[in-house]
């Protein structure tokens, strides 16, 4: 069951479109979910930030609240309360690094700081205390918090990098988006493929299980039919059972083939075949098994058509013509002669096969369905034609059904020629 037939791109096109549609929906779904999730994360981050944010009391505000008196600096009552409330501290250093004023300063801190110490605290911590500095003329206001309440890190980026970042951030987001799209698409594809495979295997299993019991129904019905010791009526009934079990057999194999072609699981066993030979073979097998007065098959193949070689699954191609002829015979009426004309020609490196009969033609509904426009279960009477269509499409070919003006129906198939398929016709 493994292995997918190649060269089924045409056939898979519609399916690919459908799959793309599903994929797009999935992408939208994922994108929507992602953005909702992102939004929620952002909002919660904001809420956490707002609720837990600790801000340094502004150095400038402190300076303004500070007045120089004879007894040194005095802070306004309001600002002092602010310090209490925020659990922060501050100190003012003069140009030599001496503390000339302070409020709530931790006791472990010194009264004088060297230049190197000031440089260090401007960037990192002061003995574990997070601090922020504000330069006021020749003085420096140091505002600090308690230990372990603030994370601090100084970041620096080279200018070219920042330029690069500014330029690429959009691309980066775009790549991100594409990545999400691809991922979602892959998942959707995988999902549908698995489901298809399960379905095909299920159908294959069922048809297998039906076949063995049906063998016995068919075999014994045939035995009874042949038994001359039985009354004529019983033998007739046995004949009906046998005939109907043959119908069931065909149904099962149609069902299996349809499901495999539908999901392109049938690994096409392609080889070089001459359609001319296949057409003749099928036509002859029908002519040999039917009453000559009821069936006429006219095969018309010119010299170039004779040389035509395509790469195809021989069995399936035989199936195509069997089904077409069967269909014409079935709907051709019991009294009139069924006249079938099959012609093969080669044009512009394509093989065209035209099949025509003298029946009553296809109904509007059947035509619509054969053109694949109407999506519904194939009615019993056109299952064979559906298979024809699927086989041709699976071979990367094209097929048209229609009614002739003079009555009867036609079907035109177009197949690609096999590469290097020009046979040497001068060999004799």
């Amino acid at each position, binding site marked *: 069951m493994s292995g997918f037939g190649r060269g089924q791109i045409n056939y898979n096109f519609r399916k690919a479109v459908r799959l793309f549609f599903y994929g797009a929906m999935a992408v939208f779904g994922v994108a929507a979910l992602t953005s909702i999730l992102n939004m929620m994360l952002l909002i919660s981050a904001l809420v956490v930030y707002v609720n837990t944010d600790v801000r340094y009391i502004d150095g400038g505000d402190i300076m303004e609240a500070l007045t120089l008196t004879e007894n040194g600096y005095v802070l306004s009552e309001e600002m002092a309360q602010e310090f209490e409330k925020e659990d922060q501290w501050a100190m003012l250093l003069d140009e030599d690094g001496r503390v000339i004023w302070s409020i709530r300063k931790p006791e472990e801190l010194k009264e004088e700081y060297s230049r190197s110490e000031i440089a260090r605290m401007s960037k990192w911590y002061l003995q574990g205390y997070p601090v922020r500095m504000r330069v006021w003329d020749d003085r420096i206001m140091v505002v600090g918090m308690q230990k372990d309440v603030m994370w601090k890190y100084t970041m620096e980026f080279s200018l070219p990098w920042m330029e690069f970042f500014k330029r690429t951030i959009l691309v980066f987001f775009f790549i991100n988006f594409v990545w999400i799209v691809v991922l979602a698409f892959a998942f959707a594809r995988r999902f549908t493929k698995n489901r298809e495979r399960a379905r095909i295997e299920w159908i*294959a299993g069922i048809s297998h*299980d039906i076949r*063995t019991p049906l*063998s*016995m129904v068919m*075999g014994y019905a045939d035995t009874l039919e042949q038994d001359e010791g039985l009354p004529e009526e019983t033998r007739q009934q046995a004949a009906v059972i046998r005939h109907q079990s043959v119908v069931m*057999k065909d149904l099962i194999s149609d069902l299996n083939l349809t499901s495999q072609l539908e999901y392109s699981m049938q690994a096409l066993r392609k080889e070089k075949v001459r359609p001319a030979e296949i057409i003749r073979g099928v036509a002859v097998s029908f*002519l040999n098994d039917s009453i000559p007065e009821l069936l006429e098959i006219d095969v018309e*193949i010119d010299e170039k058509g004779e040389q035509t070689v395509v790469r195809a699954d021989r*069995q399936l191609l035989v199936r195509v013509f069997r089904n077409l002829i069967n269909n014409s015979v079935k709907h051709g009426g019991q009294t009139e002669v069924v006249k079938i004309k099959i012609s093969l020609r080669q044009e512009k490196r394509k093989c065209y096969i035209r099949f025509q009969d003298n029946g009553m033609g296809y109904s509007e509904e059947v035509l619509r369905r054969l053109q694949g426009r109407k999506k519904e279960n194939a009615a019993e009477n056109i299952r064979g034609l559906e298979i024809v269509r699927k086989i041709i499409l699976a071979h990367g070919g094209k097929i048209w059904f229609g009614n002739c003006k003079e009555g009867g129906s036609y079907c035109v198939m177009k197949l690609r020629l096999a590469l290097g398929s020009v046979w040497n016709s001068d060999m004799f």
Partner: protein
Amino acid sequence: MNLYDCKILLVDDEKALREMVCGFLRRAGFYDVTMAGNCKEAERMFYEKEPQLILLDVMLPDGDGFSLFKKWRQASEVPVIFLSARDEDENRLRGLGLGADDYITKPFLPEELILRVTAVLKRVYRVKNVQEEEIIALGKCRVDLGSGVVHWDSDIEDRTDGEVTLTAKEYAILQKLAQERGRIVTIDALCDAVWQEENYGYENTLVVHIRRLREKIEEDPSHPQYLLTVRGLGYRLV
């Protein structure tokens, strides 16, 4: 060797089916049929009975027919016809290139089974069916397929020689047509019978051979009575 003396081994896990097929074979005249229901039994029977034809189910309870077949093929050239209930097996079979002699998909009609069994036996052991005719009568001439000689009734005026010998190609064509007497044989099938492999491109040559053949077997070669052309398809011997 008589066709119906051939020993047949039938391997299938379904007892009812086994018995039915065995019944078909017996009724058709094959009296020496042995049955086996699994790989183990089949192997024992294979060495014990040394069958001349094996009908082998692909799916067996203790293994699969393909590997059993491969094993047997190493030791013996005995013809094998596979029985299977899956279309997919056919692909696998052809893909494996095992060289099985034929393949039957379930369900099948007794007639089909017997036909294939007989065809394989005839091909492999080159045994002649009892009823098979050696002489084909075509109006006033008789063709002896044993010797490839055409005998004419003595009362035909313009056939003074009375006896004409067929060439190898003419013989092959006539033999094929005689096998399917009354039925149409396609050009392709005829070319296949005469030139075997790589037979494309011989259609025109075939026409030449058919004309010569007509000169030998038809009273009036330009208005053939027996070897008829079916336009666009092939020929038919009536």
